[in-house]
């Protein structure tokens, strides 16, 4: 564990040093682009939007690196930026279209069937529709636990909540989803 922390401190130092910055940032990109893309795509659902949000996320990570205090892990700090970027993006898009965030997500799910970057059938669509009915926090917890298979401790660090509260949230989410799928 100590080794991991030291390695991370060294890596952050490399990211801040102008001489090593480029190589370190390339490594950061290659290590995190896929998990962060999956996380963002699960929130915004559509590839083009996920691409925009992921780019903004990395640009912000680069800009705010000098303010990174190392109080949390680099991984959870980046996930937090990605989550905020994705949720802000969704709210702004809903506002522009003059609809609620839930209505916008439902519309996006309907469009998924025609999306070339979506390879799913009825059950996937039904699951996504069930997730949209959940409160925002439960949606996030469910997606991070079920799809991304993150540990509760990791999710707790990203969302700033206790593991106990997360387990309760996930449990409620699963119950509601099961109920939705059974009745639809």
């Amino acid at each position, binding site marked *: 564990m100590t080794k991991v922390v030291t390695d991370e401190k060294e890596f952050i130092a490399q990211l801040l040093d102008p001489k090593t910055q480029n190589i370190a*940032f390339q490594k950061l990109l290659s290590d995190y682009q896929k998990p962060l893309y999956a996380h963002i795509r699960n929130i915004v659902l559509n590839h083009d939007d996920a691409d925009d949000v992921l780019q903004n996320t*990395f640009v912000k990570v680069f800009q705010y690196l000098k303010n990174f205090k190392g109080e949390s892990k680099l991984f959870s700090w980046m996930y937090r930026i990605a989550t905020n970027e994705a949720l802000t993006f969704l709210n702004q898009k809903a506002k522009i279209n003059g609809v609620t965030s839930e209505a916008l997500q439902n519309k996006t799910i309907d469009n998924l069937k025609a999306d070339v970057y979506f390879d799913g059938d009825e059950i996937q669509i039904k699951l996504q529709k069930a997730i949209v009915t959940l409160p925002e926090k439960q949606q996030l917890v469910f997606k991070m636990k079920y799809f991304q298979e993150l540990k509760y401790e990791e999710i707790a660090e990203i969302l700033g909540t206790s593991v106990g509260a997360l387990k309760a949230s996930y449990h409620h989410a699963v119950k509601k989803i099961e109920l939705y799928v059974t009745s639809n």
Partner: protein
Amino acid sequence: MKAYKLENEPKIATGFKTPDDYFDNFSTKVLQQINDREVNVIPLYKQKKVIAMLVAAIVIMALMIPIINNYNNKAKDLDEATLETYLSYQSNLNQYDLIKELDSKDIDKLSKSVALEQETLEDILSSNPNIENLISE
């Protein structure tokens, strides 16, 4: 209808895909965007700062014009004492030049101030050992 149980069913994948070479080109795209922002944003900010500083400098100089003018005017006004000292010690003016400049009013003033008291005159005459010279003159 049988109740659906998520844990009893096979895991449902998201079904989300990306274009084939998406992650190969992604880092280049991000680095490009970071460089573009650095090139575009920072000079604009610097330029604004330079313009603001120029405007501030011009305003300050404009405000200083009356102060400078005032200072120069004051410097040109010679006070009486300085003039007197200059005339007494530095100039080539002699007694006759000064006399030439006197008018009748000045002469009247001089004669008044020269008028001596009777007692003072007596004192001078009595204490002066060369009184005879004075009388003969």
